[in-house]
């Protein structure tokens, strides 16, 4: 089965206007990223700020321009569409954004928002549309009377459910989840995450789940990709990447996460204090060679001059971009 989404060597640039005369500075937000998403599976994309994770999501959605490489959805190269993506594509790929408040039109009721989504893609009578709205609200756990409400009247968790409902209403196959739970409280986070998993089982949805929290990503993803300064440094099955990270950055990320277990955390704290303390470089000024070399305990001369290739590692289904991958693995085992 061909993957639902294939991203090949994708590069995306940001153009910043710096001086008043309009001379632009180009920022390379995403460089040479490749991964696939299978049908009915979740690919978790993890990275910190400046990693380019949101940019990848936006590019797949057609909100940002492709500077290099390809994005292939179900066999079709979306770069060939040009600026305006066709309605058929819009039906298949939808989005849930991070901020539930600003992602809903504040001056429309929930019902109107979802109704717009439905009418745009299906020719249905008013009665059928109403029924569809109720159905989709029900599938995200909201009562039908919520359709009359405005976004400000709902809580953060409820708004996020509405955003999910809006995405579901067009019956897509792939949903880009751009940090969907980062703005929510812990108790609400778990509700929304469970909902997303349930919906995946029920409708066979695929997700690109973008987040900065590795624990959350681990929970919901089948495959994980780790981004650093616009480059993919590691991919692989979720359990495998989480349990035995191959790339030094993934290791640093894991070591920096805080677990709610004081004893375990004390040991982790001691371990992480042994790591080098450095600031991440600015995306405007990426270091030469491997982008992580300025903060890597394993950095050698080759790392500072040559960009490592993203290639398969010894383990099953794992890829990483590191010159010293073998040494890292030996030290970890």
């Amino acid at each position: 089965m061909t993957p639902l989404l294939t991203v090949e060597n994708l590069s995306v640039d940001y153009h910043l206007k710096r001086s008043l005369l309009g001379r632009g500075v180009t920022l390379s937000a995403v460089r040479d990223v490749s991964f696939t998403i299978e049908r009915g599976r979740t690919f978790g994309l993890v990275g910190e700020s400046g990693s380019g994770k949101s940019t990848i999501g936006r590019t797949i959605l057609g909100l940002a321009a492709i500077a290099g490489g390809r994005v292939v959805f179900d066999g079709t190269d979306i770069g060939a569409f040009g600026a305006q993506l066709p309605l058929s594509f819009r039906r298949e790929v939808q989005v849930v954004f991070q901020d539930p408040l600003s992602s809903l039109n504040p001056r429309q009721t929930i019902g109107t928002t979802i109704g717009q989504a439905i009418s745009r893609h299906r020719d249905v009578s008013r009665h059928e549309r109403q029924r569809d709205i109720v159905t989709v609200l029900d599938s995200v756990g909201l009562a039908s009377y919520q359709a009359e409400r405005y976004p400000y009247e709902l809580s953060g968790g409820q708004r996020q459910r509405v955003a999910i409902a809006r995405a579901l209403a067009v019956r897509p196959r792939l949903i880009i989840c751009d940090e969907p739970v980062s703005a929510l409280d812990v108790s609400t986070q778990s509700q929304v995450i469970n909902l997303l998993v349930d919906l995946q089982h029920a409708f066979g949805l695929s997700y690109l789940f973008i987040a900065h929290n590795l624990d959350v990503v681990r929970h919901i993803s089948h495959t994980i990709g780790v981004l650093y300064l616009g480059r993919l440094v590691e991919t692989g099955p979720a359990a495998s990447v989480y349990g035995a990270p191959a790339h030094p950055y993934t290791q640093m990320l894991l070591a920096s996460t805080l677990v709610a277990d004081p004893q375990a955390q004390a040991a982790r704290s001691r371990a992480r204090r042994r790591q080098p303390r450095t600031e991440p470089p600015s995306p405007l000024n990426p270091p030469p060679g491997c982008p992580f070399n300025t903060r890597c305990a394993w950095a050698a001369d080759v790392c500072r001059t040559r960009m490592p290739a993203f290639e398969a590692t010894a383990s099953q289904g794992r890829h990483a971009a590191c010159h010293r991958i073998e040494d890292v693995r030996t030290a970890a085992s």
Partner: protein
Amino acid sequence: MKRLLLTRLLSVVPMLFFVSLFTFLLVRLTSTDPIAQILGQGASDADRAEYAQRLGLDRPLVDQFFGWIWSAVQGDLGNSLYTSLPVAESIADRFGVTLSLAIAGMLFALSVGIPLGIAGALRHGSRWDRLLTIVVSTGLAVPSIWLALLLSLAFAVTLRWFQVVGYTPFSESPLEWARGLVLPAVALGIHTAAVIARQTRSAMIEVLQARYIQALRARGLPRRQIVLRYATKNALVPVLSVIAIQMSVLVGVSFVIERIFAVPGLGTLLIDSVVRADFPVLQGTVIVVASVVLVVNLLTDVAYGLINPKVRPQ
């Protein structure tokens, strides 16, 4: 900072060009025919053609435009169609007056508006603030011409503290010059003072609610220092753009106020040239005034860059 200054200066040049082009076209589209005005309705075609040639109005528009630009760069703005006096001279005579009026008005507005705005923000919600809002709203609503009339009536005609009409150049007597500017400056400046007060107040209120002000209080800084040093500088940023716009407004309104105080500024020159379709005078005046406005905008941008480091080119 120097780079900011340089880039802004450079961008003024194309702007001036476009303004000249715009003015030229606008003026030429005027429905009044200057030749008919000069010669009267009954003139013969031959006379009209001959006059047109003499005034250079028969050449193609493009030629006229570039010819005008070329001379303007060298300081020659042409001659009035009616008086044949050099436009540049007429403007130069009156330019200082208009500038004095506008600057005096702005100084008055700043010295009244900014303190009032800050005071209102600090007492936000109290009776004083409400009173201030009413005063400011009234200041915004009062027509400058009416104010000028009333001030003139009260202080010049009745109390005789100031001269009713006329203008004393600075070179003749600085004291009299300043004295003659008082009433016009107040008449002009009240509206602008109200605009500035209102903008300062709302900018200050917003700044005072900012997280960094709370952080400064958390560090135990004295309130006076927080307000004067930190809040004011941050609030100044949006106020600056208001000042730039108001300068342009002040120059415009000064043309009208001149009439009331019989001050020999650019206003009378301008109004006559509109009525008579005296192209060279109209073009020249608009260009000179627009240049002043562009310079003021430039100075504002520079000031903005001085205050707000984020804007400076890196």
